[in-house]
């Protein structure tokens, strides 16, 4: 039965039920309730919790726990996730699974506490040094966030990759009805360090980057082929297709349904995986579509780059314009999205691409 839960607490409980047995992190608004909850909850299920001295230490503790084969978690936001990037790169390099939750808040540098989507580029491009990607899941409700925690761990172990749960401040702070999943039983990963050297890990001095590059390309190609997730509605006959994820994706769904009722031929693609980007959804878009429109909680437009790239790839013979509606921070109201749609339709907004 569904009960009202605060997002961060429901997410933390879902992580435990998905088998997470180690958490290390550092407090930051708007994600702190995840660690507060796990500070007592981990002990109840035989797991471990460390309030780390920094985000750097937190992600490196996750590296240690993951290397020993335990489902490990850290959560943070904005600048905290920046500090974790070296560790995330290391996890990907070592082929160690982990789930990193970011409840995105707005701003550069220290930033603000407003809910936002300003870190899309960092999460989807591999934010640290090197040549890697993380799988990025971007739920639009507390329930969807909860339901994606187990798939997040399963994906991270299947591909030995980091999965970033790209939330928003809103998703952590709001209360919604939630049905929690059952507990899963987990065992240590086959590549766990046990002290017995029963898994012969290849040392850094024996590694062959050219050979690994082939494997890496194959892995990322498999992820792109098999793991795209999205929600779409009304794209086959749409004149304009909105692209929006997370809570703005929900607001946009409300907007397109009202617009449809008013006779406008509009559709929505709501990515659930921001990487791999749901290219397959774009293939469904009406060949006569007049434009794609992203709805984003940031200043400069980040999602629009991918929307433009994939509409170009899937509709090669046509130069379909890509527009960005950027609302900086906070979830845009349906009425704003509708009003801005009409401005685009009337030619008052210049396309980005």
């Amino acid at each position, binding site marked *: 039965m569904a009960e009202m839960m605060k997002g961060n607490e429901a997410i933390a409980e879902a992580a435990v039920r998905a088998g997470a047995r180690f958490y*290390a992190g550092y407090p930051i608004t708007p994600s702190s309730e995840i660690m507060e909850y796990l500070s007592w909850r981990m002990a109840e299920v035989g797991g471990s919790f460390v309030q780390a*001295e920094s985000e*750097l*230490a937190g992600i*490196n*503790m996750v*590296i240690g726990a993951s290397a020993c*084969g335990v489902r490990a978690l850290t959560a943070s936001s904005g600048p905290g996730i920046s500090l974790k990037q070296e560790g995330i790169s290391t996890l990907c390099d070592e082929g160690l699974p982990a789930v990193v939750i970011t409840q995105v808040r707005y701003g550069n540098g220290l930033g603000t506490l407003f809910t936002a989507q300003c870190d899309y580029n960092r999460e989807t491009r591999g934010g640290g040094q090197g040549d890697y990607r993380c799988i990025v899941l971007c739920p639009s409700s507390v329930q969807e966030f909860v339901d994606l925690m187990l798939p997040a761990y399963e994906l991270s172990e299947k591909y030995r990759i980091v999965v970033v749960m790209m939330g928003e401040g809103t998703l952590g702070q709001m209360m919604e009805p939630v049905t929690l999943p059952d507990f899963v039983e987990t065992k240590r990963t086959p590549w766990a360090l046990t*002290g017995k050297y029963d898994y012969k890990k290849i040392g850094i*001095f024996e590694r062959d980057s050219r050979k690994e590059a082939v494997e890496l390309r194959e892995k990322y190609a498999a992820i792109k082929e098999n793991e795209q997730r999205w929600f779409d509605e009304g794209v086959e006959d749409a004149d304009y297709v909105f692209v929006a994820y997370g809570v703005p994706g929900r607001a946009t769904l409300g907007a397109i349904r009202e617009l449809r009722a008013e006779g406008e031929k509009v559709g929505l693609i709501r990515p659930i995986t921001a990487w791999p980007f749901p290219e397959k959804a774009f293939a469904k878009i009406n060949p006569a579509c007049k434009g794609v429109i992203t709805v984003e909680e940031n200043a400069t437009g980040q999602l629009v780059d991918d929307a433009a790239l994939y509409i170009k790839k899937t509709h090669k013979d046509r130069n379909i314009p890509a527009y960005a509606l950027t609302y900086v921070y906070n979830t845009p109201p349906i009425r704003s999205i509708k009003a801005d749609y009409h401005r685009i339709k009337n030619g008052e907004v210049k396309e980005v691409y």
Partner: protein
Amino acid sequence: MAATRERKVPALVDKPMDFCPGCGHGIVSRLIMEALEELDQLDNIIFPIGVGCSSNLGAGLECDRLHCCHGRAGAVATGMKRVSPDTLVVSYQGDGDAYNIGIAETFNAAYRNENITVIVINNTNFGMTGGQMSLTTMEGQKTSTSIYGRDCSVTGYPIRFPEIVAREFPGAAYAARGTVTNPANINKLKGYIKNALQAQLNHEGYSIVEVLSPCPINWGLTPVKAMERIEKELIPYYPIGEFKKRGEEQK
């Protein structure tokens, strides 16, 4: 008369390691492996390994090991130990890794009294990158980033971390400093390492052994002169001995 002992390679070492002639790392890594063998822990050991010359340890070992981000071995060791409380976790780091870039992780692991063992090879400089100044560089010591000699008035004074652990962290189980300058000191150091490992095995808490180790290449000295430098210059500032013995109450 001591019986002639057969020279054998410790079971956990499978290849030669690439340390410079006259370096102390090889002696220390051998002592660790011998101690593990004598404590019957060859199948119960994970090494989180630092960045720098200490990285070379990983090249020669046949056991569980993970190279950590520079300075973060204290945090990685924490994560490993929390999920594997009965497995020995021994971080192997240099002074630059453990103290310069890693002081937050090193300090906080000791502060939380993680049940891990930390081995720090203190050669008073960043060996791997060409002998730059580190937190343990002696006052007046010339390095590639202190070409006129370390000026402590603007760079701070050489850090004595095991003493900080012994003095400030009541829960810590064991803190010592040894060196490799002669057989007597090497034997003493092996005893320190065994004490540290035994403390961890008994879940007594945090243990650290720092080792004064020669770096002839970067010091610009012959191996023999480098050993003499440790005796004459370093030991007077960095005393060898046990600063916190096992089972000892905090002073």
